[in-house]
């Protein structure tokens, strides 16, 4: 059984193969001294090697390639650890896959020199099996990398969402919601929720929704704004939409969007002045005229 050779070689030639694996990695420029110390790289390589070796040994009697088999549990765990650590520090998906694949050639080399095989059949079988094994390990690594990245993207999306729709208290009973970028339905929902809860938390009477940073207002964005303003009014506060630039005013007119009762102002400054007036607040300059 060819797999026997592999596990015997993995066992007997551990030191030699680890070294050779390291050299192949170095040759292919996969040793990132900028991201890892030599010791860290060595520990990771050893960890993977031992898990692989253990898996191969355990799978001698079963299907070597079933990656879900129990005998590969350690391998999967080790890969997950190493992949997470490496991608966190900036190793690319391709580098991660190549890192795993770099074990192939040293092992083939050992097979060639240790297996006494006159007609080559045993060797070809062993190479075949080991190739399939390492390929599926590297594929699994790629999947891990991608799922790590997906997680990062999702987390960043959530963080951005919160960052992108802050509600700031400008004054007693006056809050502002500066909107930046695009206002898709998901963001709009977030903005609405944040705004409404700020009315309660900050006891706001006036909410200034500033769209200076919004690039275009189409009918859907307009609809979101109108709905938010209506909800603000339902809660007993008043919404002022500010930062309506000339180009946005023009497109809104041409779209035929009716902002109805909602108060609109061209700048945040004017909206704030309005709000002060309404709340009977005077802001006095102490610099003598």
């Amino acid at each position, binding site marked *: 059984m060819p797999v026997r050779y592999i596990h015997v070689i993995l066992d007997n030639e551990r030191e030699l193969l680890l070294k050779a694996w390291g050299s192949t990695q170095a040759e292919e420029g996969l040793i990132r001294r900028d991201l890892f110390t030599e010791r860290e790289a060595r520990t990771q390589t050893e960890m993977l090697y031992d898990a692989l070796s253990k898996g191969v040994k355990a799978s001698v009697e079963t299907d070597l390639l079933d990656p879900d088999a129990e005998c590969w549990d350690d391998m999967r765990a080790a890969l997950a650890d190493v992949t997470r650590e490496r991608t966190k520090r900036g190793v690319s998906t391709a580098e991660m896959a190549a890192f795993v694949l770099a074990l192939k050639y040293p092992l083939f080399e050992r097979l060639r020199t240790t297996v006494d095989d006159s007609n080559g059949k045993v060797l070809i079988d062993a190479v075949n099996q080991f190739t399939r094994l390492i390929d599926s390990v590297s594929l699994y690594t790629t999947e891990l990398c991608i799922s790590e990245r997906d997680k990062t993207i999702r987390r960043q999306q959530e963080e951005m969402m919160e960052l992108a729709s802050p509600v700031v208290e400008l004054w007693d009973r006056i809050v502002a919601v500066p909107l930046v970028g695009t206002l898709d339905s998901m963001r709009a929902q977030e903005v609405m929720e944040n705004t409404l809860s700020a009315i309660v938390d900050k006891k706001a009477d006036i909410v200034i929704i500033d769209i200076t940073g919004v*690039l*275009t*207002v*189409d*009918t*859907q964005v*307009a*609809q979101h704004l109108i709905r938010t303003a209506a909800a603000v009014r339902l809660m007993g506060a008043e919404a002022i939409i500010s930062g309506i630039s*000339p*180009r*946005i005013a*023009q*497109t809104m007119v*041409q*779209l*035929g*969007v009716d902002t109805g009762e909602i108060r609109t102002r061209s700048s945040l400054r004017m909206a704030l002045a309005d709000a002060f007036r309404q709340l009977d607040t005077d802001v006095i300059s102490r610099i003598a005229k």
Partner: protein
Amino acid sequence: MDALGAKVIRKTRLVTAVSEIFRNGLIYGGGALVLIHCHNATRTVWIDCCDDGPGIEDMALALSDGYTSGSGLGRGLGGAKRLADAFEVLSEPGIGTQVRLAGRA
């Protein structure tokens, strides 16, 4: 349009119109293919938005302001027509919809 040196107001108009049309293609047409062509000689950007959705039965009604079969403001089609420098809708119920619009830089 940047390459054509368009004023920001002209860009905003076209981007808004395209946003309306593309969103319709997405929502009502079930996804749309958009082709953008920049004609340097006339300093015009042409945009085609095609979908293979249900099509529009009553074009006059769809274009009229305030009509929506969904939950929109019903001003997308008419608005885009007013914002664009050229505008044409071809639609065949059961086959799909194609909207072609242009904006001069």
